[in-house]
């Protein structure tokens, strides 16, 4: 379904970002900038143990400290019904969400919140936190999925029994869930193979690394209404979470999203809002909390470490005959890792008749994992794309040609069963193959080039947009999607395209939950897709109303008028025509304001077919130290239709940078007792601009079959292939296959020593 022939006046251009001036001048208002009269400051007491029974909590000394207004613990939370709360890009069990926000009987990871204090200043709150007396019975911690699955492992939840696709087993276990995908006959497929490669991979826990920490202010007003000002990816999601955790009526809560300093999936769940609401109720004052970086690492949701075993077979002609995978993902202290998504994506780029995939969701004594840009898929691609590379080498084939020969296309059945609609996997691979980078000389020793591809879904969900036509022809656009990656521009441009007016004539504003219809989270690569679609529908509504007004002005029938490229004209009389701006000037005398509305329920996971992405990466390895220099990176991605190409390129570059950091340096370095040894940004080493070259980008445009402009979400798939592409490049440079993330200098040197014997 395409709204035009693909020729656009606004879409595909690169207008100046509307939020740029405020952000570069420091005037944009973030959560930390919020202030109101009587504001108190909150601090949290957090568990020093990764696994412990909470025997008692005594808050009396803290409550008696001058300047302290309130203290809350899990006792202050209401009993809530069990069930799921949909966070948009991930669902959580409400009871577990509550217990993650404030530990009730057990601390399940170091940093697990035990109590919160509101005081006149952050310093008094810190003093008070130190006066809370908690008695623990410390238990042994278990930190990886294989260890947690082993017989005799410490059990996190006495009531957790493994569920086997809807069937509750009797075994108390750290494995919350096991599922399986199967197509064809995998044993026969491997029997038909001439080459079979099998390897085991381990990936470390990594954090999204958003620069702005979690920050929230809450006022529980005297009238029972709650106001929240927060840094979030979804204001309506916060509203729903707080309502369900505190057992309140959702519409009594108003959430104002402040500007957001990064999220990448990590700012979907609530951590601060419910305790701050309770503190505000107790103190009758507004309460604010800003997490420290240490709290961000230790007490918010990173993406899981994982253990993955992959086996792939192919025949001499280069056809993959069978594939098998076993994925065990760490969920953190409560069930709910993205292993299902990883399992759906692990073989997504390939058309494989025979495959078998087993997935395990495993609780461990680490923070509850949350979404991080294509959650689960990067771990999976790190494994599969190395095996694919190795098979191509053994068959003597070019690795891109081998992938092309097996590439998924429209009609290919995915590992989890459904068939792909129109997708751009082959076109991404063709773009890699034809890029000058792919065949450029490496130019020196100890250098290698790797390629990899990956996939991530689109999520549809619900969005709302209103458009108000000002009498000077400028259109005010109101929407509820937090703008993380430039969506004010991409949504406004879709409205402008539909109205036939310049992008600059649409002014987009993100508003609070009382001021716009339900809008789901900015996540799942959905915002430009779904909220942009709502903007398109709102613009169509405006166009129809404008035609009615033109009919009044000209005293003709509305159906005799058409709107083409922003000009309203009579189909019969060429003299009767007005621009959008001219017609807007007539509104005052033809009935007053025009407000257009657009809402969509744009479907669930898989809407639009998703996006494929690929990377070419050149590395140079210092053979003495194992230090890796990234020499050249090219990112290729199917955007369906790039609304604002600069933003799409920015997403591709950002995803590549995060993926390369994940590949080479980033990890939760855990001590045996479950403490994180590197919970600062000095020790948790994310890439900076000096670490990387300019990343070249190629946007492939294979329109999605569902969106009016063919849009696909582009926020996530670009992080999927980089670690595998780096690994394949390191193999070419060193001859060593690295099966563990991160591939830091120690791992590389040890691998080279091992190879040298």
């Amino acid at each position: 379904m395409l709204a035009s022939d693909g020729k656009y006046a606004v879409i595909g251009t690169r207008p100046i970002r509307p939020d740029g001036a405020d952000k570069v001048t420091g005037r944009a208002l973030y959560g930390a900038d919020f202030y109101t009269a009587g504001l108190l400051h909150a601090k949290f007491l957090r568990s020093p143990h990764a696994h412990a029974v909470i025997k008692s909590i005594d808050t009396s000394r803290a409550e008696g400290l001058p300047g302290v207004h309130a203290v809350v613990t899990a006792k202050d939370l209401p009993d809530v019904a069990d069930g799921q709360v949909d966070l948009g890009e991930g669902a959580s069990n409400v009871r577990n969400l509550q217990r993650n926000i404030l530990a009730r009987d057990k601390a399940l990871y170091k940093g697990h919140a035990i109590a919160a204090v509101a005081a006149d200043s952050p310093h008094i709150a810190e003093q008070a936190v130190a006066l809370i007396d908690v008695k623990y019975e410390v238990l042994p911690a278990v930190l990886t999925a294989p260890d947690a699955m082993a017989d005799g492992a410490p059990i996190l939840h006495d009531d957790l029994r493994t569920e086997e696709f809807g069937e509750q087993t009797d075994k108390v276990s750290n494995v919350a869930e096991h599922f399986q995908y199967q197509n064809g006959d995998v044993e026969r497929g491997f029997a038909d193979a001439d080459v079979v490669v099998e390897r085991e991979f381990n990936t470390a826990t990594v954090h999204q690394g958003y620069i702005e920490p979690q920050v929230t202010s809450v006022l529980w007003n005297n009238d029972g209404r709650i106001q929240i000002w927060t840094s979030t990816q979804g204001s309506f999601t916060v509203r729903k979470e707080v309502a369900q955790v505190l057992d309140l009526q959702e519409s009594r809560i108003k959430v104002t999203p402040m500007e957001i300093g990064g999220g990448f999936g990590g700012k979907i769940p609530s951590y601060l809002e419910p305790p701050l609401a309770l503190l505000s109720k107790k103190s009758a004052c507004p309460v604010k909390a800003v997490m420290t970086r240490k709290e961000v690492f230790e007490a918010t949701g990173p993406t899981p470490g994982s253990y993955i075993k992959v086996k792939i077979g192919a025949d001499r002609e280069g056809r993959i005959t069978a594939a098998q995978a076993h994925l065990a993902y760490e969920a953190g202290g409560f069930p709910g890792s993205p292993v299902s998504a990883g399992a759906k994506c692990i073989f997504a780029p390939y058309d494989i008749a025979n495959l078998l995939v087993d997935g395990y969701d495993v609780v461990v004594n680490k923070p509850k994992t949350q979404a991080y840009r294509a959650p689960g898929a990067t771990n999976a691609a790190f494994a599969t794309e190395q095996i694919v590379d190795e098979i191509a080498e053994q068959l003597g084939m070019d690795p891109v040609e081998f992938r092309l020969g097996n590439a998924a296309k429209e009609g290919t059945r995915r590992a989890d069963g459904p068939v792909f609609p129109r997708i751009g996997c082959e076109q991404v691979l063709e773009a890699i193959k034809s890029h000058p980078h792919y065949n450029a000389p490496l130019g020196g020793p100890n250098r290698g080039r790797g390629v990899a591809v990956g996939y991530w879904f689109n999520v549809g969900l619900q969005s709302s947009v209103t458009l108000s036509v000002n009498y000077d022809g400028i259109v005010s656009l109101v929407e509820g999607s937090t703008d993380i990656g430039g969506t004010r521009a991409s949504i406004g441009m879709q409205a402008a395209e539909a109205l036939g007016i310049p992008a600059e004539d649409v002014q987009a504003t993100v508003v609070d939950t009382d001021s716009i219809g339900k809008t789901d989270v900015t996540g799942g690569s959905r915002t430009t897709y779904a909220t942009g679609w709502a903007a398109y529908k709102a613009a169509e509504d405006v166009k129809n109303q404008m035609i009615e007004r033109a009919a009044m002005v000209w005293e003709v029938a509305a159906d005799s008028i058409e709107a083409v490229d922003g000009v309203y004209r009579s189909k019969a009389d060429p003299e009767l025509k007005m621009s959008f701006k001219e017609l807007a000037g007539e509104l005052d005398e033809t009935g007053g304001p025009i407000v257009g509305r657009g809402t969509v329920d744009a479907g669930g996971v898989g809407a639009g077919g998703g996006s494929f992405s690929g990377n070419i990466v050149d590395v140079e390895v210092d053979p003495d130290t194992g230090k890796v220099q990234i020499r050249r990176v090219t990112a290729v991605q199917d955007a369906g239709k790039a609304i604002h190409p600069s933003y799409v390129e920015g997403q591709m570059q950002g995803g590549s940078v995060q993926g390369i950091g994940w590949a080479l340096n980033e990890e939760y370095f855990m001590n045996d007792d479950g403490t994180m040894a590197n919970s600062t940004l000095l020790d948790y080493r994310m890439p900076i601009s000096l670490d990387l070259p300019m990343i070249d980008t190629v946007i492939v445009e294979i329109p999605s079959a569902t969106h009016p402009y063919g849009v696909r979400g582009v926020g996530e798939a670009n992080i999927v292939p980089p670690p595998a592409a780096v690994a394949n490049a390191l193999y070419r440079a060193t001859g060593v296959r690295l099966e563990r993330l991160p591939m830091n200098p120690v791992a590389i040197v040890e691998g080279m020593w091992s190879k040298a014997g």
Partner: protein
Amino acid sequence: MATVFIPPLMQSLTDGQTTVEVAGSTVREIINNLEEIHPGTKERLVDKFRMKSNISVAVDGEVTPIGMLEKVGENTEVHFLPAIGGGVSAPREETPRSPRTGY
């Protein structure tokens, strides 16, 4: 008739059949009719009147947010998939109702 793909871990209930042709115009009717053909399947998928919170249903390739309410046409493919946190959405019909507020 819709083609229902039976998850591998449920195929013991369908005598090893990987797909079953089932009549019905909604996911709810499909599940009820599948239960008639292969008893025990509904219990694995449904909790009272809703899809189980950790199971989602895809109709013609797309996970539906409205679960058992989703319409099913002729020649439709129906897949039951794990719906767990981190990258997928729970069915919207699964939103819990609080005993206190009834919300």
